[in-house]
């Protein structure tokens, strides 16, 4: 068999380092800035905050994002960011990034190049997944693994595996590319009630952070996550009390009765509207 390889041409300035941390076979957590229930972002923000909030490296945006202007979201001009953080205490690398708009293969390989440079032992991704559960139920977490070794290793933490046949998510693509390099990687997919999917589901963020901490053996002060989850529960309880239609539909979900498409849309709009009204 004959084959030929050409190494993807990567410009040397793809990374911009401000320091070079010293870590011993760290884990790499990847969090994206937009996902269902803002779970990925919530976990990444939490971990970045716990790490001190200082990034040591960023991926230059020009190859992967449209840089002809800025997007404005919630009155604020935004700009794509892909920043790496390190937490020496917990031996952790964190990528907190917008999903690349183009050249995903090159972007993900750049991430894995950096992971190999730091001799990363395992890569983890965290994402939300839409579910029909009501917010009063525990969020289940489904695992995706790039090999049977990592699947066996994490079986105690992630007994349920995701099933999927379709266009791969960025995280799944990353896991698969990591597997091609012999790097163990797992994705955590946390359930988010459909009516909370367009905003941050604080309960799902807390569940994800807690499970991730358990997997890699970190201890975190989670009072802030607990407080936000409690606030969310309180707000939703208030909405149910205030709007009997919302209450009735959530109750049906609690009783395992499905809502039809129109009812789902109406419930989502009612909840979103109420959250907006209550700030």
């Amino acid at each position: 068999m004959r084959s030929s390889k050409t190494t993807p041409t990567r410009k040397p300035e793809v990374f911009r380092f401000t320091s070079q941390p010293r870590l011993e076979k760290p884990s790499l957590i990847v969090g994206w800035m937009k996902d269902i229930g803002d779970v990925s972002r919530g976990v990444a923000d939490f971990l970045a905050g716990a790490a001190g909030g200082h990034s040591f490296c960023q991926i230059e945006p020009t190859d992967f994002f449209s840089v002809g202007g800025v997007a404005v979201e919630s009155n604020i001009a935004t700009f794509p960011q892909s920043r790496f953080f390190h937490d020496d205490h917990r031996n952790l690398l964190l990528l907190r990034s917008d999903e690349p708009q183009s050249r995903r293969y090159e972007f993900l390989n750049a991430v894995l190049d950096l992971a190999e440079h730091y001799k990363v032992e395992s890569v983890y991704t965290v994402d939300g997944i839409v579910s029909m559960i009501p917010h009063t139920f525990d969020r289940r977490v489904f695992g995706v693994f790039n090999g049977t070794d990592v699947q066996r290793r994490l079986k105690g933490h992630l007994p349920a595996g995701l099933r999927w046949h379709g266009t791969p998510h960025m995280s799944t693509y990353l896991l698969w590319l990591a597997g091609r390099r012999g790097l163990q990687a797992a994705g955590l997919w946390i359930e988010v009630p459909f009516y909370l999917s367009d905003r941050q589901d604080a309960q799902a963020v807390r569940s994800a952070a807690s499970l991730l901490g358990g997997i890699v053996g970190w201890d975190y002060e989670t009072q802030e996550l607990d407080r936000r989850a409690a606030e969310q529960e309180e707000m939703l309880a208030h909405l149910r009390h205030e709007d009997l239609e919302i209450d009735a539909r959530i109750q049906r979900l609690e009783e395992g009765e499905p809502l039809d498409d129109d009812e789902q849309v109406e419930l989502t709009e009612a909840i979103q509207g109420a959250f907006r009204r209550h700030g």
Partner: protein
Amino acid sequence: MGFRLYCEPDLNQPIMICGWSGIGKVGLVAINTIRRLAKAEPFGEIEPEGFFEPSRALIVNGLIEDMRFPATRFYAFHGPIQDVVFLVGEQQPSDPHKTYEMAEMVLEVADMLGCRRIYTAGAGVTTIHHTNKPKVWAVPNSLDLIPEIREYRNTILMSEIRDWQGEGAITGLNGLLLGVARSREVEAICLMGEVPYYLQGAPWPYPKASISVLEVLGEILHVPLDLRELQETAEKVEANIDQVLDALVTVDELPEQVREEMEILRHPRRADLGPITEAEQKDILEHIDEIFKDNSDKEA
């Protein structure tokens, strides 16, 4: 990014014939058909990672079991007068730099296998009516090939297309491969089956143009091709187009000028088709595309 050969086929100075997905899937359908009829054997592929986004992931009980990408495969065929390498590409890279890299890679394989000539197949968009038999436009990368092309059946050079004066552009790999081959001093010819301009955005293939290309290739290779199956598909597509045009003229909001053009397309014998202005062509395309979009949305 690279290529992988499962085995080294025993080929003697083969020619390479390439077809990629493009307008009307003319090249893809043509080359896929001929390699299937010839029972050509797959022997290698261009590794898709880096060229394409993954199209499908299969995750079973949490384990990523498969990641599918658009394939670009090589097939070998021992023809009656010459050996042939077919290349079938399910998709073209969207990034121009990657398109160039793929063209270089294809030529690298061609060079390794001792290919003496490259053919590419695709679509030529023109004002032909869908009930007419498409001609084949041929563009070589060397003047020396023109006398040979003049012998091909139902084939014209760019200079024979009205108002084109021998000039034009071939987008994507069908064209780029000619250029890269030229820089490597390898003969190459692009064969383009004519596709009506109002169908260039259609989501379905246009097999009628593929058939015209296949008739030329069959003669070049001295291989008889049974194209009845493809002919039947072409007839179904034609009936489908008629239905779409019939539906389109019933749309109330259709501007009168576009409606008149549509009537000409529906009843081609009533009047000569061309020439039409660019503005008219744009109007028709916009409305046709809307209809196709609506239909594909419904199918989805």
